[in-house]
């Protein structure tokens, strides 16, 4: 690869993009306008709500307004609340009161009739709707009178003190009053408690009925009104309570002699960092993806559409140079978009926060820490490389820019969950989460922004490893796309379902195609996914066995067998139905036995990495102990070995070999095999096992080998829990190999595991030796059968890549 050419292509593509107004708009103009506009509009909306005056209908409040001893609820004119009752920001001018008589609200009732609660609420709602009131305050008949009477009595009692009066009851009573008037909803219960507490008191229980505020949650303005009025009433009742205490000759502080103080020990910088640590990586990812996608579509699909791709392809530049040049361009724009967005967002935020400090207090948000910028800058290139390569590979497939735009959605659907996952409150950076692409990187960034360097340092290696591996494969995919004639010179074909189905049947080959193989895997996955949703897991052991058997036969083996019969000419070849060499089969079984301790270590490691907290699994394990071993072997070893091998090492692996490289087929088939296991821990375990099974299958050319391996492997896995610590202690062989752990499970002794690793290698070597000739023959036959559809170069490549 000539870097001179890469540089030339990169320079040209960048200039080309900079001359395109749409790209410039997307990456530069949009972010610079977006955040200021968002800031201004949200500022205006909040201003609107702050400035919007609340219209309140006060029912039955005239009496209170007319003769009102301090502390007063209404001002001297009797037109508004007392100015002293407003908090600073809520200016008195923001409340407009309209006074009406109680009879005015419910004209049908006379002054003495007490209306039911429902009637009152209905009437209040009607008034709010008809006359656009934001809230209605209802003072029940006699409220003012009772209040005055109660306070007068308190005063007179101080003047003529009776004997032995329990003072503490008094203060308790007062505080209960305070609480009840604030919370208008549960008036009855509060009044009841007040009644229970006061009997011993010689003061007559205040018969003050509670005022009610009617509001409408469905209207934003009404909720604002409720908050304002509640604030006013809270301050008023507090004052009334305090005044009552003074009048009763009790110190004001008696009601609240102390209060709970809360103190945040987080350093000021870190407190702000928490929010930023979640927001910034997300913004970075989103814009890196968007910024990569649009240029990629223009650079690949756009170039195809304008007919300049062929001009470039017949220039001396190699395909890899073209891809790398384009990829660097896409990366540049991806990074530029992310940087400009973060900068614009930061700048807007800084201006907003400095001009309105109360906003920062409200949202508990300060300026992001300066180090954050450094860490984000460090993470940006690999992120852009990953998204850039994915976008280039996808866009190369599209024939036109329009088609390219359609691919954005699938890309977002795949990557978005990975970006949302780290935003979940329970997500922490662990070895398990660090291995998830994108998610791990976001979690690492979060720790770095929060300056938790010790935590971050522990997981830098896995995150970097996963991210760089992802980048590598994405770049490889992009280069492969540019080397594929069918991708570059894809012609549009009219979709005709009937024709296509007939073609599938009529033009079927001896073995399935890669697309059919992947379709089969996805079909099995879909069926399993929906059946798990629909079928509730049985609670009996028998039910569990039946469900497992039905799942394997009907949802795994049946689709694969059906596809084999319908879509291939040679089911025998597809399913590799031939006898292996006796030695190969023996080596396989030996390998499965030798591998078993390693499999147990692997399983326990996975459970340690991603702890299982599924009660269903725990229940299943308990059921297993009841089931006789014979049945376990039949349903959990024999059936899976047959059904899963027919599907995954049979139909799917045969089809995937169409892609050329056997190892690629093995890897893709194991990923599919893992994914259909649905539970993460099982999936990873199955995927790793799938690699071994796939290798064994391709190398031996016979499905019997992976079946034997699978059977022995599963049989041993289910045999282990059947051993109790008594059995182990009783048999010398078991005692040498195994040791029970404190939590009841049984594991292999460490020397045994090491020995097993060596034995596995020996078994693998034996297997390789015994299959050397078979592998070569099989690869040759495979190549010859496919020669019609391939260039000789591809056949040569396939022959040379027999797994060794």
């Amino acid at each position: 690869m000539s870097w001179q050419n890469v540089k030339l292509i990169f320079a040209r593509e960048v200039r080309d993009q900079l001359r395109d107004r749409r790209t410039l708009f997307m990456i530069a103009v949009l972010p610079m306008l977006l955040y200021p506009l968002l800031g201004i509009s949200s500022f205006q909306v909040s201003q609107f709500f702050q400035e919007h005056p609340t219209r309140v209908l006060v029912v039955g409040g005239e009496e209170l307004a007319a003769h009102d001893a301090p502390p007063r609820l209404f001002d001297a004119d009797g037109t508004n609340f007392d100015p002293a009752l407003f908090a600073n920001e809520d200016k008195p001018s923001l409340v407009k009161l309209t006074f009406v008589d109680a009879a005015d609200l419910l004209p049908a009732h006379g002054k003495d009739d007490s209306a039911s609660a429902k009637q009152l609420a209905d009437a209040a709602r009607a008034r709010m709707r008809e006359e656009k009131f934001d809230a209605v305050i209802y003072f029940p008949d006699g409220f003012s009178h009772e209040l005055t009477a109660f306070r007068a009595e308190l005063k007179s009692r101080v003047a003529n003190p009776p004997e032995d009066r329990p003072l503490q009851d008094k203060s308790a009573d007062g505080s209960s009053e305070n609480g009840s008037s604030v919370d208008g909803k549960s008036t009855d219960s509060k009044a009841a408690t007040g009644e229970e507490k006061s009997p011993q008191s010689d003061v007559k229980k205040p018969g003050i009925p509670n005022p009610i505020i009617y509001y409408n949650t469905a209207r934003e303005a009404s909720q604002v009104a409720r908050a304002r009025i509640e604030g006013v009433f809270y301050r008023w009742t507090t004052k009334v309570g305090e005044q009552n205490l003074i009048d009763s000759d009790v110190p004001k502080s008696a009601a609240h002699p102390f209060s709970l103080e809360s103190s945040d020990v987080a350093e000021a910088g870190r407190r702000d960092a928490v929010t930023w640590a979640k927001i910034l990586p997300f913004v970075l990812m989103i814009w890196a993806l968007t910024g990569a996608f649009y240029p990629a579509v223009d650079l690949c699909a756009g170039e195809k559409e304008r007919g300049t791709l062929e001009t470039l392809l017949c220039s001396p530049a190699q395909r890899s140079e073209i891809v790398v040049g384009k990829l660097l361009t896409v990366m540049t724009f991806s990074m530029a978009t992310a940087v400009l967005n973060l900068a614009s967002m930061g700048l807007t935020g800084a201006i907003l926060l400095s001009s309105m400090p109360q906003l920062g207090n409200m949202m508990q948000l300060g300026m992001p820490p300066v180090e954050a910028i450094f860490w984000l800058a460090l993470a940006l290139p690999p992120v852009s490389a990953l998204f850039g390569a994915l976008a280039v590979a996808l866009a190369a497939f599209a024939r036109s820019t329009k088609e390219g735009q359609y691919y954005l959605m699938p890309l977002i659907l795949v990557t978005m969950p990975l970006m949302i996952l780290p935003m979940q409150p329970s997500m922490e950076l662990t070895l398990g989460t660090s291995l998830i692409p994108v998610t791990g990187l976001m979690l690492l960034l979060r720790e770095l922004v929060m300056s938790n360097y010790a935590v971050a340092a522990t997981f830098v290696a896995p995150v970097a490893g996963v991210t760089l591996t992802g980048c590598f494969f994405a770049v490889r995919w992009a280069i492969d796309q540019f080397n594929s004639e069918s991708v570059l010179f894809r012609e549009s074909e009219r979709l005709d379902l009937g024709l296509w189905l007939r073609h599938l049947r009529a033009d079927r080959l001896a073995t399935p195609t890669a697309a059919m193989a992947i379709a089969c895997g996805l079909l099995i996955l879909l069926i399993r996914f929906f059946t798990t949703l629909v079928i509730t897991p049985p609670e009996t052991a028998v039910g569990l066995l039946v469900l497992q058997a039905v799942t394997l036969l009907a949802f795994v083996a049946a689709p694969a067998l059906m596809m084999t019969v319908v879509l291939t000419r040679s089911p025998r070849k597809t399913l590799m139905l031939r006898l292996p060499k006796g030695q190969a089969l023996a080596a396989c079984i030996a390998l499965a036995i030798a591998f078993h301790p390693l499999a147990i270590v692997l399983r326990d490691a996975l459970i340690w990495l991603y702890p299982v907290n599924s009660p269903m699994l725990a229940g299943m394990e308990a059921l297993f102990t009841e089931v006789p071993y014979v049945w376990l072997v039949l349903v959990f070893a024999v059936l899976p070995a047959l059904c899963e091998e027919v599907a995954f090492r049979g139909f799917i692996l045969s089809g995937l070999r169409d892609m050329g490289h056997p190892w690629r087929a093995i890897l893709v088939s194991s990923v599919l095999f893992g994914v259909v296991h649905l539970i993460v821990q099982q999936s990873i375990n199955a995927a790793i096992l799938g690699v071994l099974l796939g290798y064994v299958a391709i190398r031996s050319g016979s499905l019997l080998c992976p079946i034997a391996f699978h059977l022995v492997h599963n049989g041993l896995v289910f045999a282990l829990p059947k051993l109790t610590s008594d059995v182990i202690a009783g048999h010398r062989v078991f005692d040498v190999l195994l040791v029970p752990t404190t939590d009841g499970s049984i594991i292999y002794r460490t020397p045994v595991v090491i020995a097993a690793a060596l034995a596995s290698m020996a078994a693998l070597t034996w297997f390789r030796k015994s299959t050397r000739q078979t592998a070569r023959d099989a690869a040759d036959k495979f190549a010859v059968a496919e020669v019609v559809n391939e260039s000789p170069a591809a056949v040569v490549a396939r022959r040379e890549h027999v797994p060794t």
Partner: protein
Amino acid sequence: MIHVEHLTKTYADLRRGKIVALDGLSFDAWEGQIYGLLGPNGAGKTTALRILSTVLQPTSGLASVNGFDVVRQSSEIRRQIGFVSANTAVYDRMTAWEMVEYFGRLHGIERDELRERMERLFERLQMNEIRDLLGAKMSTGMKQKVSIARALVHDPPVLIFDEATSGLDVLVARALLSIVAQLREQGKCILFSTHIMREAERLCDRVAIMFHGQILAEGTLGELRNEHDEDDLEELFFQLISKHEQAAGIGVRG
């Protein structure tokens, strides 16, 4: 110079099944010669020329240019040829000068030498007035001139023109044909595909008549006329194709 032997290209098509685009094509072309590929649309001309320009890979058979193999030495081949086709468009957001300079640089020509060469080329092709015009603003004729300049900038020994005159008006087409003739005088080997008989008659030293991926007849114009006893090339072309279709039992196309 150009050697093609039993070249085959097949690809799968859902509607029509397996398509044989080239069916054992063989021919040779030499320096100082214009070799014409004549054939109706879909005869396989473009596929053959794409294989020669290494954009496509052959299914089987051999093709070499100036001794280099198209599959194994594809980057060498791309330095040996200049490829002008209806499918090799001009960048919209580049000026004529930038476009030609870009490809010159990709060919590894030194900056000073490139400028000198381009000045001469722009003079010869009378392109100086469109030097700073963006591709998007150019007429079809101007674009074709830029394509030719782009194909000539590295002074390749072999030039391939694939339906290069399609869409051009008479004046521009004539100018292009005279440029091609000049290039022959310079000793270049030129492969010229067209479905316009007049162009072939005026220009080509040897002609191959292609149909359904095969060569039906090949030779100098004189040889072809003698062999088939027909003076008019268009008539000769039509007869050959009719005969072939009858033999294949397809019937004459309308």
